[in-house]
Structures are given as structure tokens and as C-alpha cells.
């Protein structure tokens, strides 16, 4: 997704939960919301990790000051 | 449809009779005609041992025996290993050594190992592995199965 953020590997975004983070990310770098969201939820093939842990709550998960958020391909195991 | 043959045999010490088509294997007869589903199908061509039964003192893969060949034979399946509600030492050893995970290969291993211990009550590790080479297990890596057979051998000798 680096091409959406004009080559930036890491970006700082405001927000109290993932929904707000994505909305604010999209405001600064248009295109992120389309990439991440479908039908009001994080796309099923994308996982959200906060401070290294995959969250099951998707859009609803709260983020703290200085939380690190990653969007990863969702995969699992055998 | 091909006509059926009437077969009389002994299974786990009981007289059993059934009808089968010539093309039906002993495995199919045990499972689908007689209703003894403990013997499993893994490959149907003799290469996995999941259908191992004891026929006239020999361990065979039931998928490679025809149902009609059971005529007059003495067959032991997994259902006949326990003595009523008393588990055989092999069965106890498998449980206590955690020698099964999914359990699908377990009936074949138990029937096969029982025959080994009847012929060779004190087998070496190599002898156990050699005897069981036609019983495939994909879950355990065989380690705990071999230990269970060694354990069962000890229990049977002490008995």
C-alpha cells in the first residue's frame, strides 16, 4: 500500500478506533478506504494488527495514543 | 446386476453369513454388508494398512481379499480384539502412551501389532517397525505407536 501513501513506509494518523483511523488516513491519502473497507467492515481478506496483535474487532477496535496499526493479508493455517 | 453369492464365515469367533456380489471386497462386506465399520478404508489398494484384519492367522489388507474368499475362514477384526468389555493390553498401551491422534489408522495398527506379539512376544524396535511398515500413520510419526507396542509386549509378558 506504500504507493497510496506517496512512498511513506510509516504515517501518523489521528483516531480513537480503527474506523476513525481509516477515515482519517483516507482524508490524507485518498484511496486507502477503498483498499481496506467493504460494506462498512474491514475487507475479509485483510487483518488489522494493533501493536503486533491481530484484533478480532476490526473497525471497532480502539486505539491508544502511540498505538501501531498494521493492515496485513488475512491468513491462517492448516 | 450380478447375482450374489452366499458366504459362511467366522468373524471374531462368531458364525456369520452374508450375501455379496463377486466384485465386493472383504473390506466392503465387513463395513457395508455386515456392519462392522471398525475396519477402515484408506486407499483400497493394499498400501495403507487401515483395513488390516487377521485372516486364518495372517494379517491381510481386507481391500485385497474378495468377500467370497471369506468362505470357511476365521477372521478377526478390531471389534474382536477386546475381551468383552476388557480392553486388550495393546489397546490399553495405545491409550496410555497417547499412540493415536485422529485414530483412523489405529484399528489396523492394533490388529497388526496383536499378530506380531502373538508370533514374537519380545520384538526389537526394528522388528516392530518392519512388521508395521504397511500400516501408514500420518499423525503420530510412529514414535508413540512403537513405544505402545513395546509397552504392550512387556505387559503381556508380565501377565
Amino acid at each position: 500500500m506504500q504507493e497510496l501513501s506517496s512512498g511513506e513506509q510509516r504515517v501518523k494518523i489521528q483516531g480513537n478506533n480503527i474506523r476513525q483511523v481509516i477515515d482519517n488516513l483516507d482524508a490524507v491519502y485518498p484511496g486507502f478506504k477503498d483498499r481496506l473497507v467493504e460494506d462498512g467492515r474491514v475487507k475479509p481478506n485483510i487483518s488489522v494488527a494493533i501493536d503486533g496483535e491481530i484484533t478480532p474487532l476490526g473497525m471497532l477496535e480502539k486505539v491508544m495514543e502511540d498505538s501501531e496499526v498494521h493492515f496485513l493479508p488475512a491468513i491462517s493455517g492448516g | 446386476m450380478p447375482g450374489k453369492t452366499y458366504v459362511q464365515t467366522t468373524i471374531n469367533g462368531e458364525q456369520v453369513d452374508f450375501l455379496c456380489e463377486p466384485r465386493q471386497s472383504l473390506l466392503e462386506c465387513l463395513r457395508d454388508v455386515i456392519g462392522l465399520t471398525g475396519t477402515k478404508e484408506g486407499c483400497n489398494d493394499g498400501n495403507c494398512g487401515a483395513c488390516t484384519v487377521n485372516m486364518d492367522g495372517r494379517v491381510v489388507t481386507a481391500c485385497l481379499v474378495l468377500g467370497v474368499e471369506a468362505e470357511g475362514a476365521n477372521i478377526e477384526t478390531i471389534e474382536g480384539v477386546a475381551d468383552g468389555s476388557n480392553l486388550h493390553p495393546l489397546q490399553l498401551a495405545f491409550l496410555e502412551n497417547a499412540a493415536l491422534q485422529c485414530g483412523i489408522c489405529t484399528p489396523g495398527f492394533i490388529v497388526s501389532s496383536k499378530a506380531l506379539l502373538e508370533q514374537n512376544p519380545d520384538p526389537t524396535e526394528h522388528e516392530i517397525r518392519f512388521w508395521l511398515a504397511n500400516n501408514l500413520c500420518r499423525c503420530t510419526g510412529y514414535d508413540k505407536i512403537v513405544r505402545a507396542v513395546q509397552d504392550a509386549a512387556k505387559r503381556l509378558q508380565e501377565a
Partner: protein
Amino acid sequence: MTTIDNESNVVLATNTDFKVVGTRPVRHDGTDKVTGRALYGADYDASGLLHGKILRSPHAHALIKSVNTSKAESLDGVKAVVTASDFPQVADKTVELGEDDTKLEWLRDNILASDKALYGGHAIAGVAAANPHIAEEALKLIEVEYEVLPAVLTTQEAMADNASILHKSLTTQELGEDTGVVSNVASHFQHVKGDVSKGFAEADIVKEREFNTTTVHQGYIEPHNGTAFWSADGRLHVWCSTQGSFVVRDSLADLLDLPVSMVRVTPMEIGGAFGGKIPIYVEPVAALLSKKTGAPVKIVMSRKETFEGSGPTSGSYMKIKIGAKKDGTITAAHAWMAMEAGAYPGSPVGAAAQCVFATYDLENALIDGYDVVVNKPKTAAYRAPGAPNAAFGTEQVINELAEELQMDPIEFRLKNVAVEGTRRPDGPTFRRIGAKEVLEAMRDHPHYQSKKQEGQGRGVAIGFWFNIGFDSACNIAVNSDGTVNLTEGSTDIGGSRTSIAMQAAEVLGIPAEDVRPSVVDTDTVGFTAVTGGSRTTFATGWAAYEAAQDVKQQCLERAASIWDVDVDGLQMEDGVISSTADSELRMTLKELASQLGSSGGGISGSASVNPGGVGGSFAGNIADVSVDSDTGKVTVERFTCVQDAGKAIHPSYVEGQMQGGSVQGIGWALNEEYFMGDDGNMNNSSLLDYRMPTALDLPMIDTVIVEVANPGHPFGVRGVGEANIVPPTPTLANAIYDATGKRMTELPMSPGAILAAE
């Protein structure tokens, strides 16, 4: 602290404050399984049962011009025939398949092909008849007109210019954007950390290798099966061996355009899966046949069909390049990986990317992943999917660097090992992990400390799997004799119902034998995700823990009511309820249970969870091999597996997972492969020629369970099912190199390949 079962199986236990957790009770379902009474999918019977068989494409790639089923339908004993046209027409959507997702259209197309056969073995039609033999005869009477097309069987073939295209509608997603270019490359993604060009420039030595692996199968002994009954009231009931009853239910609902409430899935016992029984194959066909006939229809795959018509794992083509300074610090790493998805997109290349360099703390890393379709069965998960392929590459290059720097291979890994706080190249930062502890346990193990035998070679490697959480539900009811019934929805492939029962027993302070666990159907328990992803002991364990806490709280409240005291002063330890204020007040759970009816009624607790706090697992191997210089045959002389379990709930079954995964890895390394003929079909689709390890091929698999507790689980559990299949292939490659000087970069390292290698 060690509790040693025998010297070959060691548990480096870190928390022994438990009464039940960490012990080794006999599993609850054990007696049924050693007496042949346990019922697996193929054992299911019903009155009026019909038997189904499936016609499969003999061509790896072909247009299906026409399908004529009339002759088959008129065969005596045949009750119905179905093809793709019998599926209801549903709008396409993304469907969740339990762990990943795919397009409904592709799922449906894989189950019964519509306009194209995309691999040899692709299902074309289904027949239901009075017995399986008649059904098989009917297949021969179905007339299919094919127009054969060229097939592509490797990523290189599929990615070449002018390659034969599988899907005219598939365009490459390049770094998240649709290029609009029709190709066999479904997607290309990248993970970037730091700057690899700078990193490689700083390196004193750089090693780069290309690796090729081919298709292998999970190899479960029980073929796929399913019985479906579509009742006159519109309800569909399915009995099958599956890793996920709810996935079967939801997939059937999507495919057949039914509400999920009209579909009920009863999981039978399951004879092995390893990821291959997450997707569905025969159930929808059986359902369609049942709808047409009004009878229950059972379909059981043959072994050949299991190889050709289910979901093996990816072949792959990888380039791994790693640079390091003279002092052993890795400065940069680049992985370029193309993985076969089979006939429809969705290889595990994404997972491979998360694991390929996970063991190492890297300042600069670049990972390129390509998901490529080929004319082979659609891949399904196989125990840590993608990671074994990646490790086959990385762990050999790591060894080459160590060798050139004249550093011990374990010390080299320890110098660069990831720890809590290390950021992975794909982004997340590690929480508490046990990579270092696993490496140290390997280094200190008597196997590694022992002198190598004359003529043998020794190899080491380490691998990682991230593990997953996802949803689980659990209900617990107290019986009048003080035992409890526990119902859960995780199909039990390896003894998990006992590990789950043990966790509930620990909370309630009762013996494991006093918990009666049952795996129940989709009508009886809340949504539970698949038994896979190394999630079951962790997530369903959490559900059992929470349900047991619920029961415990209710017991305390009931005791408070019986004694007419405040519940706040009461506690329950070791199955005894007592008061901190009044030492006279004591009763066992058994005593309370006998009074439930007269004190207000039964007690039952429940929980539905979707836990975060998943902990990943590292697994490492040490292997000694001898290689016959005349035949090229590799004998595994000694093998040790070390794995971080966080907390081994039932150590025997953790050891079992370690041993089983190690042996699957050994088979993958030394013998297993899909041998594809010139016609694009698998030539060795039998257990004779698809050569899996037998008892005679192996030594004992010694184990060391390391326990670096996962803070995200009440007992510290990390899933263990998968990480252990990751290191064996590079471990054996490294051992073979040590024995022969030959660096094997292709799998399998079979006798012929070893002889041919330089």
C-alpha cells in the same frame, strides 16, 4: 524445572502451579477409537442411503463443450445425475472459507466445473445410485466433449510470456492496484522494511540461491466424505469429516442459496486433515443429489480422487538473498517467492511472507510475493501453509552464511534472533516469543552436544508460525454427581477435546475425568471457527475457561444462597467451596451438585469468544543423516524437535504434534511429490507411488517442549500444531550438505535427485 516422561521427551515446564494442566490423562474418546467404535464420516449410515460418485476430467486444461448424462441416468440402479447447472444461480460474492476467502463463483466451479476443466481430476458431474459400484459404472456412461488446451504446471510456465491462460477474467493485482492485464498471476505484493540496497552494500558477504519445490499432499489416511439429506421440509442435514462444521454450513448456504438456519452440519470423527479438510468438495454434490432423489446420499472419495480432486499445497519457485557482516550480523534479506495457487487464486504466499524471515531481527528486508494459478487442483492449507517452502530456502542460505563466516549455525542464528519488540518485515512487532529459548534448547541438547557418527551429516534449522485466534463457543452444565458436561464445536483431530476439558477442569478444580467433553453440531453450539491454524487449544480453551468461570461464579452464588451468606466471602479451590470468614462452611462441588435441584435448579455456563493475544510458536530441529553414495538414499539416523508451546496443556499430545509434523516434513523433504506427466496429470496418485514415511523409514523423534508463556492466554498456551512442519526440509537439506557437500535446492531430495546433484 523439568518433568521428564522419559529421557527422549523433555518438558522444560515454566509454570507448574497447575493441578490438571500439564498432566497426561487418557483421552476421553480413546476407548471408542481403540475398539473401532468411533464413527468417522464414511461409517455413517441411514435408511434409504444412496451412494454417489463423481466424474472427473481426464485433461489438465480443457473447454467443456457439452455434457450428456442421459445414458447414465437410464442405467438400472441410477437415481440421479447432477452437473454445475443444477446449482442455483446466485449473485457472485466473496465467501469466507474459514481462514481465507474466495469468490463464490470459483468455489462453486471447483466443486462442479462449468465451462472449463482446469486440472486433471476436476469434478464434472455427480451420480447417485443404489450402490457405489453402479454409480461408478454410470460415470463411464456420461459423455463429455472436451477441447483440450495447453496446460501450465509450474509458476515459471504460468508466468511466461504467451503462457496458456486459465481465467480470461483474471487480471493481475499489482501492489494492490488492478492492472487490467489478463494473466495467470493473480497478485503481486511486497513488504518493505528499511532499504535492502543499502543493507546489501554494507554486507561483507552475500549469499543468494534459487529454490524449487513441487506439489505435495497433506496425506491424511481418511479420504474426503460427506452424506447429505435434503429433507422435504427444506432443511439440509450433512454428516461429514471436516475441520470446520460451521464453514461447511456457511459454504453450503452460500452455494445452495439457503439461509444458514436451514443447514445443519453434524461433524463425524475425522481421520486426519492438516488443513486439507477446511474446504468443501463432495458435500454440495451430495446435497444436490439428495434434493433430486429425496434420499440421503453419501459420497466418499477414493485415494486417487483425494490426490487429484482435493487441495494439495503449493509448489513454489523462490529466490532468497541474505547479506551479513563479518561479525555475523545480518544486514539485509530479500525473498522473492512465486507460489502455485492451483486452478483458482489463493496460494499461501501471503503467509509465507509473514514467516520467511520471522526468526531474524532485520533492519533491511524486502519480500516479493506472487500468487500464480496453474493447472493443478486448487491448493488448500497444509500445516503452516507456505512457511515450509519459505524455510527450505531461508534456513539453507542462513547456514551457508554461517559456514562461510566459520560460525556455529545455532550461534549465528542466536546472534540475529528476533525477540519481544523486534519488528517483522511485514510490519507487526513481536510480543513475547520463544525463538531464542528454542535455539538455546537446541544448542544445549545432548543430540547437538554429541559427536557426529562416522560418515553422517548433521543439520539444524528453525521455523515459525504465527497461529490464529478466531471464534469459539463452549457450554458447560453441572451434573447431579458433580461431573460436568462440556459441549464445544471444535472437531477433534488429535485429542483436542481432552485439552479443552482439562482447561475447564483446572478452573473448576476437578479431575479431567470429571469433565465429559463432546464435539457437537452446528445447531447445538455457538459459532466456532475451524480446527486449524493452531487455534483450538488456545481459542476453544479460552471459551472453556470462560464458561467454567461462569459456572464457578454461579456455584459460589448458589452456595451463598444455601448458606444464606454474602457471596463475596466465598471461594472455590480444588473443587471445594469455602468461606474466608467462617471455616465451618465447606462443601465440595459434588455436594453442591447433589443439591442443585432443590436449591433453585441446574447450573450451566457458557461463553463465546474471539480472543486476541495469540502467541506464535517457533520450532527447531537437529537431524543426523547418512547418505548412501551408490543409491542416493538418505536415512534419518537421529531427529530431535524443539518447540515453544507456551504451556503444554497435555504434554503427550503436544509431543504428538511435534513428532507428526516432523515426519510430514521428513516425507516432504525426502520423497513426496506430485509427479506430473506430459499430459498434465498426476502419474503417482496412489499411496504406493506417493511415498509417505512408514514406521520403517524413521527413528524415534525426540522432543523438547520449551515453555515461554503466552501472556494472552490464562495458562500461557501457544498453538503448536503447525510450526513443527516448517524446519524439517531445510534441516535435512543442511544435514545432506554436511554429509555430501551437495547443496540441494529442489524438493524432494529423493535418491535420484541426490545422485544427480553436483
